């Protein structure tokens, strides 16, 4: 029989084709704006032998939708931030947490080749409903539409010009707008009575001097944020095309020319190296400890969560006035927040300094005084490996516990300054500065300390804290320390061998 010799080859070929088609013939997922423009195409694949469910890379999805993501390798948890929602998934688990909402998927989230893989069901049930007005997902076509169709802000594009870069914001019709710099590296454009699709507007490096464009719908207004390169100097704005185009001309500063010569493409992993430069001091983040059902320490009729909020609210205007910085409070009410949420908010705000305010407690009422803590330099192999992976570009995830490592030296410097200054200002004993594995500090990508302003279990400390003048004296003391810290950081940054440049590997940046 002629067919017998070829039967094995035929069988092999058939099986390979069948298997290959089963495993890989999944369609691509398209992320597109309502207007039809495809923003990204993401491959999907089947990963479970007993399920037809398709999976897509969480990394790719987050990039396409411009979502912040936080990965905690110890617990294998990934948090995606969509608008003001934090959606948490766990590798090998089916449960998705979104605030108080729990969703049980039919199949688990998986981990493959260094990527967290999300089932399509996650996009359908958990993500698309959180993307904002107009967002929708069609399982049949695998189309994820990111926003409303009737937008007023149509597009953002840019071009290089001799003095820097030019941004054009295209509008459907003439609208009022206001442009301002909120820090040396952030330009904010607010368009009144305008609707936009934030995902469609987001862009990377649309023009020289612009690192990133992000947008959000704020009530009736559309707000666009332009993250600028360090060499940015100043900008001018004007309307063209009968008001249907907003033009932003960005110019290099005098100091920017040299920096521009060594221009390079920044990525998420650059958070480790350059998100907070030593001479950047625009945003101070104050974290009032505890809150909500977590009352913290108690003593002398005081609750730590209330004391820390009151002190933080007193610090805010004083520091803004004295230092000319923007002060952000992690909470401004009686809210329950996890340590991760606090760090995430600080990172999101691109803070330059993070101070977590607390009160202490001890088993013996004799213990008292001011304590300042900073995160120790974790030289574990895991931390070093994670940092090395980020630098090599193996992964764009920033492992949670490595975010703070580059700032440990400057955190210690800040802690020691506070520990030296505040006891005399507040007339309380000083307990010095010490390293401690505090969870809230580990994920903060900036110099960060925990300041314990006294012991609520100590009658003298509690009485001092309860004094109406205490907050003002604390604000004056913290303000003086931050001014010194800023000046020393800038002086160190202009020289070589700055303490903050030390990395866990002892390398110099």
């Amino acid at each position: 029989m002629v067919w017998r010799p070829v039967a094995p080859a035929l069988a092999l070929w058939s099986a390979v084709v069948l298997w290959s088609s089963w495993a890989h013939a999944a369609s691509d997922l398209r992320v597109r704006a309502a207007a039809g423009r495809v923003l990204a195409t993401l491959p999907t694949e089947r990963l479970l032998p007993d399920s037809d469910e398709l999976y897509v890379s969480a990394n790719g999805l987050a990039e396409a939708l411009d979502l912040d993501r936080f990965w905690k390798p110890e617990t294998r948890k990934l948090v995606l931030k969509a608008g003001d929602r934090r959606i948490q998934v766990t590798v090998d688990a089916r449960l998705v947490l979104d605030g108080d909402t729990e969703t049980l998927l039919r199949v688990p989230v998986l981990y493959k080749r260094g990527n967290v893989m999300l089932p399509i069901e996650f996009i359908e049930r958990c993500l698309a409903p959180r993307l904002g007005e107009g967002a929708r997902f069609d399982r049949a076509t695998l189309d994820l539409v990111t926003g409303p169709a009737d937008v007023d802000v149509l597009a953002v594009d840019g071009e290089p010009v001799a003095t820097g870069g030019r941004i054009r914001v295209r509008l459907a019709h003439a609208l009022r707008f206001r442009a301002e710099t909120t820090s040396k590296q952030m330009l904010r454009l607010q368009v009144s009575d305008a609707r936009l699709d934030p995902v469609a507007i987001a862009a990377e490096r649309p023009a020289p001097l612009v690192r990133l464009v992000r947008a959000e719908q704020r009530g009736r207004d559309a707000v666009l944020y332009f993250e600028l390169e360090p060499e940015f100097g100043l900008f001018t704005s004007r309307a063209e095309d009968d008001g249907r185009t907003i033009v932003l001309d960005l110019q290099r500063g005098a100091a920017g020319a040299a920096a521009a010569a060594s221009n390079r493409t920044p990525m998420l992993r650059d958070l480790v190296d350059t998100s907070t430069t030593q001479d950047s001091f625009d945003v101070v983040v104050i974290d009032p400890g505890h809150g909500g059902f977590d009352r913290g320490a108690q003593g002398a009729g005081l609750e730590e969560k209330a004391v820390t909020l009151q002190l933080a609210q007193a610090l805010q205007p004083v520091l803004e006035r004295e230092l000319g910085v923007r002060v952000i409070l992690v909470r401004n009410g009686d809210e329950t927040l996890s340590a991760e949420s606090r760090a995430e908010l600080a990172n999101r705000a691109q803070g330059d300094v993070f101070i977590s305010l607390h009160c202490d407690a001890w088993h013996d009422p004799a213990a008292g005084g001011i304590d300042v803590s900073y995160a120790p330099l974790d030289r574990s192999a895991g931390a070093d490996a994670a940092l090395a992976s980020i630098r090599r570009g193996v992964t764009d995830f920033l492992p949670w516990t490595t975010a703070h490592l580059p700032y440990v030296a400057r955190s210690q410097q800040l802690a020691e300054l506070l520990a030296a200054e505040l006891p005399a200002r507040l007339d309380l004993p000083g307990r010095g500065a010490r390293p401690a594995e505090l969870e809230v500090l580990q994920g903060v990508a900036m110099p960060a300390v925990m300041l314990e302003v006294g012991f609520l279990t100590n009658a003298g400390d509690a009485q001092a804290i309860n004094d109406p003048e205490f907050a003002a004296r604390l604000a004056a003391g913290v303000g003086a320390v931050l001014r010194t810290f800023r000046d020393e950081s800038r002086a160190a940054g202009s020289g070589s061998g700055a303490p903050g440049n030390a990395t866990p590997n002892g390398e110099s940046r």
Partner: protein
Amino acid sequence: MNGDAPNPRRGLRLPGLQWFVAALLLLLGAWLLFSPRAIEPPEAPLATAGDASAGAAPGSATVYFGDRLGRALVSERRDVVAGSTLEARVKGVVAAMAEEPETQGAVRVLPPAARLGRVFHDADSATLYLDFSPELVTQHPGGSTAEWATLAALARTVSANFPEIARLQLLVDGQPVETLAGHFDTSQPLDLATWQ
């Protein structure tokens, strides 16, 4: 069996259908071996501690307390119940931590109402699991100093008396807790080396 003499060549001549099935089985095996799948989470075989683990000398243990001002830990040598199992010895040592210290001015750093329930030992990962009653959290005084002292005293006491233990996982009612008082992460095992 039909009584025919076996033909050695006949065994090699498989009909086409058999070749097809054999190829499919081969591919199925290869696919099962190499196909992508969920990474199995590391199992923690929470075997109850047995006699195999060696502990401190029976009847005597090093136990840690806090000093009066919350600046350091102080150690004491205490007589404890000499159990025949690691579980019993751990319970004896932790019970000693809950007693009043003998050192002048020293204080207990475990909430007095907290009770240690079950003790497990995972020899493979050198992890000790201590399952406390909820008072470990609800009766904790709070403050980073007191929380640090509770964790550090437990870690150092375990290290001093059970050198084969490298990691300590605290449980409350059988479940890991995120934190005791809002400052330190206790959802994962504590690496005892970093708490010395």
